[in-house]
């Protein structure tokens, strides 16, 4: 569980914005799950927000592009847009070392 001893209790709170079950949304969610299971095992949460159902939430996180992944925790907030197909770049974007 504590593969990264420097931050043993750090929780990753991730939020993925999508609009419906499009192939791009599904791809992004699949890629995100793979990354989390591989690098953040046991210390992450993923919240999926479908803006087709809750459009009023789009303004809150200043969402323009979809899919958008928002790293709520740890701070600062980071955003990654796209289908997350390049795992290396997602790791850089989320600052997962």
């Amino acid at each position: 569980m504590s593969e990264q001893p420097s931050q043993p209790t750090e929780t990753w709170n991730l939020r993925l914005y999508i609009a419906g079950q499009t192939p791009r949304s599904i791809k992004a969610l699949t890629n995100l799950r793979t990354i989390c299971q591989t690098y953040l095992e046991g210390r992450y949460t993923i919240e999926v927000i479908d803006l087709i159902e809750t459009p009023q939430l789009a303004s809150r996180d200043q969402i323009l592009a979809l899919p958008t992944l928002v790293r709520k925790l740890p701070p600062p907030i980071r955003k990654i847009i796209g289908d997350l197909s390049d795992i290396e770049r997602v790791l850089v974007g989320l600052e997962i070392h």
Partner: protein
Amino acid sequence: MRSTTTPHALPPLPKAPSGIHGIDVITEGGLPRGRPTLVCGNAGCGKTLLAMEFLVRGATEYAEPGLFVSFEETREELITNVSALGFDLIDLEEKNLFAVEYIFLDRNDIEEVGDYTLDGLFIRLAHVIERIGARRIALDTIEALFGGLQNEGIIRAELRRLFRWLKERGITAVVTAERGDGTFTRHGIEEYVADCVILLDHRVHDQISTRRLRVVKYRGSTHGTNEYPFLIDTHGMTVVPITNLDLNHHVTTERISSGVAPLDEMLGGDGYYRGSTILISGTAGTGKSSLAAAFVTGTCERGETALYVSFEESPAQITRNMGSIGINLHRNIKAGRLHFHTVRPTMGGLELHLAMIADRIIRINPQVVVIDPVTALMTQGFQGEVRALLTRMIDLCKQRGVTLLLTSLTGPGQDPEGTDVGVSSLVDTWLLVRNLEIKQTRVRGLYILKSRGMAHSNQVRVLQLSSDGIRLEEEVQ
């Protein structure tokens, strides 16, 4: 409208009035309804204001709710900035006639990994459009997308989709953009927004700045193609579209008194024609302003409204001086019938002056306008420009049936008949006042050089100013 359409003629392009008077005149009714209009210009030229006024007027005057999508200013900043123009956005928001959607984009915050769409933007717009039932939208400025996102291919495809999406919903859009180098916009978005293009410009010449507007393109409609000056003041934006291409204004045979009974007599007995243009030329101190003051006083005493534009004296000074020859201006100022517009000629360029005077005329709606002296504007432009300006001024007055009186100051040694303004051919009635020496006395001689369409006196009368008023004697007393 549809029933009158002949089988072969296409129905006229539906238009959405902008509510900005001058723009609706130039575009012959407003912006293309249900389509986007591109408004481009450099920073600080008034793009945001035009977009905002389009929405505010739409909401207040045409009951069309509007959504302002701001990529630069927050809702709070916009509310503060336009409150100086008399726009109460909070009130409109409460009535569900207006909404701001602030879109913040920071390239440093965002990592792009793989393919994406701008569906988030569409969802946000759709949400507000549905909530307030928006019929109008302003995108200020959509080109911020190019600065905030990296994948230009996606942005372009999505912009194309966005404008199609807005058209499908029948929403009239104003899209602002910065001018590019040799192109209308920096990122070439005129490619997607091509139905109507309005160019704004803010030029400084001889340390005097003038804002100008031009409709570059209007698909499916005729429009004025000139550059029109505009000003931004506490009422919003005023564009001055005063170049009437045709001379078909309404003409009346109605006469109005010059305010001086003997002068009416010289003019065939009844004074000037209503809606005509009168020029009074003369050297300094020959009584031009007095004749103008008598004219506006006569107008106000009939219960009409007059606007007196003075480039030389303050209202207080004119009132005092005219009081000395028995003309009481104060009474009519107090009664709200006489309005003054006094500015130094050096305050702005010719077109700004024109815009300001036109703005007063449109707001006050007077029957009579005096510009005293029109020659003061000469210092602010070349003769050709002055002539063009006066032509526009005269056209505006004629269109509105306003009687316009101009005074012209002749310099020492100049021939008053060869008036330097070059407007004599534009005026209908031309009076000259000159100093004469009769029986070893210097007197003011007044005569009518021309007066279109009326029998008039050929006499030179002696103009006398006294505490009893203005008198015109046939001979020196």
